């Protein structure tokens, strides 16, 4: 079953059906991701999470969706009307387009593009436009601050993201996501390029506005940032975008780094196992994202930018250079593993070195028993 073969009849009917399937799966995934996040975060915080709506709170996501749809759609008077109204769509459409190009099982997706990887990160960049529209069009200073911060952050972190993916593309020799997954039948690319994986993961957190990079939506400061003026369906579209792009990135990262539908035994055991592998791998990413969100405070915008430009970018460039040399001279794959691991160790060492600057936790200047003078 090839991508190109129409499975469900005529090719355009086939296309529509595939699109609808992906859209439905995405919707269900997003609803259950909101539920899952609340449960996972609650467990980390020693509490239970939603329990009342349905058994173990399973209908919580649907209840939220129904509530949001039934809310009044408020538009502030000094908001720029059309910019304000189109911003949620402008943010959401790129995410869906990305989902349309990912392979979920062997040769199964909506469309197999030979420039798949390039398409993904080019289209994801359009997200930024939607966020800027939301920020500027809301007529609210907090929204403006959020939008500006988001733009700076997302544009900066695109670069290490793209460079780390290009390192993989150099090794794979192709941008076709299906082929990249198919190449990982012996070992996933994370083994060859751990540094690229770490950079990709960090940059992905930043593109998703997730902790510790969630300053554009810093809830305790600017209460929602660029989507503060939205309510009801429009707000739920922003949430949909966030979780859908989280899922899209996770599937994408799974395909590129963890072996997608192929590793460990995807080719042999059929499309059921392949689908399961895709979901397991994206689940690993998603759990990691939730875990980090619960534990870690947020970085300030200048710290975040300096981390990107001064740490991630040089390492990504060095990685590309090393890959180039290794591939030109046809050295074995162990060289790739070696250089990349060195780079990963360097990155972790930089982060730990900053952490070692933490202050000594001994009490300073604590006064022991007061010698009360005799009366």
């Amino acid at each position: 079953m090839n991508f190109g073969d129409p499975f469900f009849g005529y090719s355009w009917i086939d296309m529509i059906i595939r699109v609808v399937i992906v859209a439905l799966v995405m919707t269900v995934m997003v609803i259950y991701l909101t539920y899952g996040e609340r449960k996972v975060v609650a467990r980390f915080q020693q509490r239970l999470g939603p329990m009342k709506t349905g058994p173990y709170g399973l209908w919580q996501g649907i209840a939220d969706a129904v509530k949001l749809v039934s809310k009044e759609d408020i538009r502030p008077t000094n908001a720029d009307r059309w910019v304000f109204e189109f911003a949620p769509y402008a943010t959401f459409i790129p995410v869906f387009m990305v989902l349309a190009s990912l392979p979920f099982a062997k040769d199964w997706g909506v469309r197999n593009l030979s420039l798949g990887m390039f398409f993904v990160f080019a289209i994801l960049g359009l997200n930024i436009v939607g966020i800027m529209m939301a920020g500027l069009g809301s007529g609210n200073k907090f929204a403006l601050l959020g939008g500006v911060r988001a733009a700076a952050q997302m544009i900066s972190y695109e670069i290490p993201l793209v460079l780390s993916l290009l390192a993989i593309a150099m090794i794979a020799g192709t941008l076709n996501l299906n082929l990249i997954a198919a190449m990982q039948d012996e070992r996933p690319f994370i083994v060859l390029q751990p540094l690229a994986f770490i950079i990709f993961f960090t940059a992905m957190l930043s593109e998703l506005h997730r902790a510790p990079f969630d300053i554009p939506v810093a809830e305790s400061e600017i209460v929602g940032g660029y989507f503060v003026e939205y309510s009801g369906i429009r707000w739920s579209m922003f949430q949909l975008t966030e979780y859908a792009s989280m899922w899209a990135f996770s599937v994408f990262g799974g395909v590129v780094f963890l072996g997608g539908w192929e590793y460990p035994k995807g080719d042999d055991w059929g499309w059921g196992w392949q689908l399961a592998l895709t979901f397991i791998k994206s689940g690993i990413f998603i759990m990691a994202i939730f875990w980090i969100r619960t534990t870690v405070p947020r970085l300030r915008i200048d710290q975040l930018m300096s981390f990107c430009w001064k740490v991630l970018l040089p390492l990504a460039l060095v990685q590309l250079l090393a890959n180039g040399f290794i591939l030109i001279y046809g050295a074995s794959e162990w060289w790739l593993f070696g250089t990349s691991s060195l780079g990963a160790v360097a990155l972790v060492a930089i982060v730990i070195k900053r952490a070692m600057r933490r202050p000594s936790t001994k009490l300073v200047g604590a006064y022991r028993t007061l010698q009360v003078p005799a009366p």
Partner: protein
Amino acid sequence: MTQTYPYPTGQQTAAAGLGELVARLAGVETTLAETTTDVDVRVAPSALLALATTLRDHADLRFDFLRNVSGVDYEADGMALKYHLYSFTHGHALQVSVPTAAGHPHVPSLVSLYPAADWFEREASEMFGFQFDGHPNLRNLLLEEDLHIHPLLKAHPLQAAELLQGIESGPPGFTI
């Protein structure tokens, strides 16, 4: 830091002869008294700034911490301001009373000596009507910006039928 703070030994002030020391070094006319917890030095409003400067700067006194500024309305006996000071270097505490006339009396502001006096004086002025000369920003702090009543005066009632719907003529509350 150039200033060293020897560990305070917790001596309470009333025992130390502090009142006499202050009266001797003050250079202005003072009257001594005692409250249950502190020594009280009474001084006229015109002499307050000079006294406070001596209290802060003289080596034996060094009252570097302005703890509290309270206004009091002694109905028939006028109004008063009470300043509570403490010294971190010597560990002694003092109360300075400044009796004033009733109404909107003028008292020099201590903001130039003690930045902590800023909000205390704003509060005293809105609650009692004191006018602090030299304070840069004497606006209402706890009450609304446009409310010109002095609630803590004894003549101001605890409750008045203050209807803010514009039914009564004039601003709500009590004008002195």
